[in-house]
């Protein structure tokens, strides 16, 4: 299964099709029409659902949570004690975020989140997961060889840093609290939130100091 060279149909094993067969378009369209016709689906509700996850719920929510935890010791403590409540106090709650856990990175510990059985992900703070998070390579390898996976994302940790992998097998949803980068003293929450990436909140990356972009960009 791992050899893609001798694999001649149009499926990829990383499950992130970019050119699906048109029969799927036709089939889904027909299923939608049938469900609407039978009164099982309200077409406007479909648009509401899509709009919610395309435009309203996404990783900027999580970035706000992280930035607040970086600037308020009290909020950070609340977040680590009861993340669901603390995150709800910022107005983020709902589906796939009913039971949140926040795991904090430090010099000694680096956290990484995966769902080996499906694609569980904290929707309320990160939105819908990226394709690679749902792919077989990530789901299979994040638990067995996390450092090799991290290296693919350009993340290299000291041997003395312990990697902690969280497999979301239940309805608990994990969000990584990255370390605040150096060189951000005195920054506002809004400025800090700009630095926080989705990948850092999944744990495949760290949040780099602001200088990195200036030097290399």
């Amino acid at each position, binding site marked *: 299964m791992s050899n893609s060279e001798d694999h001649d149909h149009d499926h990829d094993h990383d499950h992130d099709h970019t050119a*699906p067969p048109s029969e799927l378009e036709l089939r889904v369209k027909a299923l*939608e029409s049938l*469900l609407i016709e039978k009164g099982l689906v309200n077409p406007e*509700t*479909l648009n509401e659902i899509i709009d919610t996850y395309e435009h309203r719920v996404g990783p900027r929510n999580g970035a706000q949570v992280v930035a607040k935890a970086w600037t308020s010791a009290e909020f950070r403590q609340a977040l680590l004690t009861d993340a669901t409540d603390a995150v709800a106090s910022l107005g983020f709650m709902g589906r796939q975020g009913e039971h949140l856990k926040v795991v904090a990175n430090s010099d000694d510990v680096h956290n990484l989140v995966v769902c080996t059985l499906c694609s569980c992900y904290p929707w309320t703070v990160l939105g819908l997961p990226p394709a690679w998070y749902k792919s077989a390579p990530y*789901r299979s390898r994040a638990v067995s060889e996390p*450092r090799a996976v991290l290296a693919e994302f350009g993340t290299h940790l000291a041997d003395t840093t312990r990697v902690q992998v969280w497999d979301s*097998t239940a309805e608990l949803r994990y969000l990584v609290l990255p370390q605040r980068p150096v060189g951000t003293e005195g920054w506002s929450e809004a400025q800090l939130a700009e630095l926080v990436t989705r990948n850092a909140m999944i744990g495949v990356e760290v949040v780099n100091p602001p200088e990195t972009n200036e030097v290399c960009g």
Partner: protein
Amino acid sequence: MIGAHDLGGKQGFGRVLSARNLDAIASDSPEPLFHAEWERRAFALTLATGMLGQWNIDESRHARENQEPQRYLDNSYYETWLVGLQKLLYAKGLLEREELESLPFAASVDIATNQSIQRHDRSTIEPPTPAKAAELLAKGGPTSLPELRQPKYAVGTKVQVLPMTHAGHTRAPQYVHGVTGIIYAINGVHIYPDANAHRRDEDTIVGEILYTVSFARVALFPSHASHAASGGGVSEDKRVRGSVTTTDASTIDKGNVKECNQDRVFVDLWEPYLTHD
């Protein structure tokens, strides 16, 4: 069931970041949530029909994972959602077999299901309005139950995960079966998926205590002890995030990444999955 979905620790899948989605490693790159319109519609249809309240999340997961392994692995993510949706619509009596077979490309219909068929009175089903849907999304569906029960295992206790004892749905991944770990946290009583995925209308909801169990990674995967890992890596030490510089395929080497024996894996497991070590 130990199906193809149970991927933790399986080998041979290769790199996470294939050449095609390398741009995804630049976190700020605008990776589309949906890669085609049908994915967007399949997603929305799944959530919208889920709001009819005819099935629960565990039935939904089981409908997706209970596929022939080769089909599961071949299907893209939203194809699997579509498979699950069609099975549930049939199993719950919302659509008839003939209706599903009348859709274009019926050859791909796979509604074989071991989920019990429960015909409901469809006249009472009212699809949610956009406002009601927004309310349901914002409310979510907590799985914790307000039940007080004495946990069998205290934090710090050594526990062993039992082998799989039934062919139905479970959330104990195969890679922890038979392995000893330590109770890290007690998360209260949560709906028990193994029962909930197969719950009939007349059955009551079963809850069990949900623990977070901590395992030594090397105990789970002795073959990945402190040696060079197989995955390969990006040879640059630092990658520039959010700029025009992305890692191109030529910078990827086989890598020399070492896994470390102090690393740990935390898995959320219900009490019936566990026994005293």
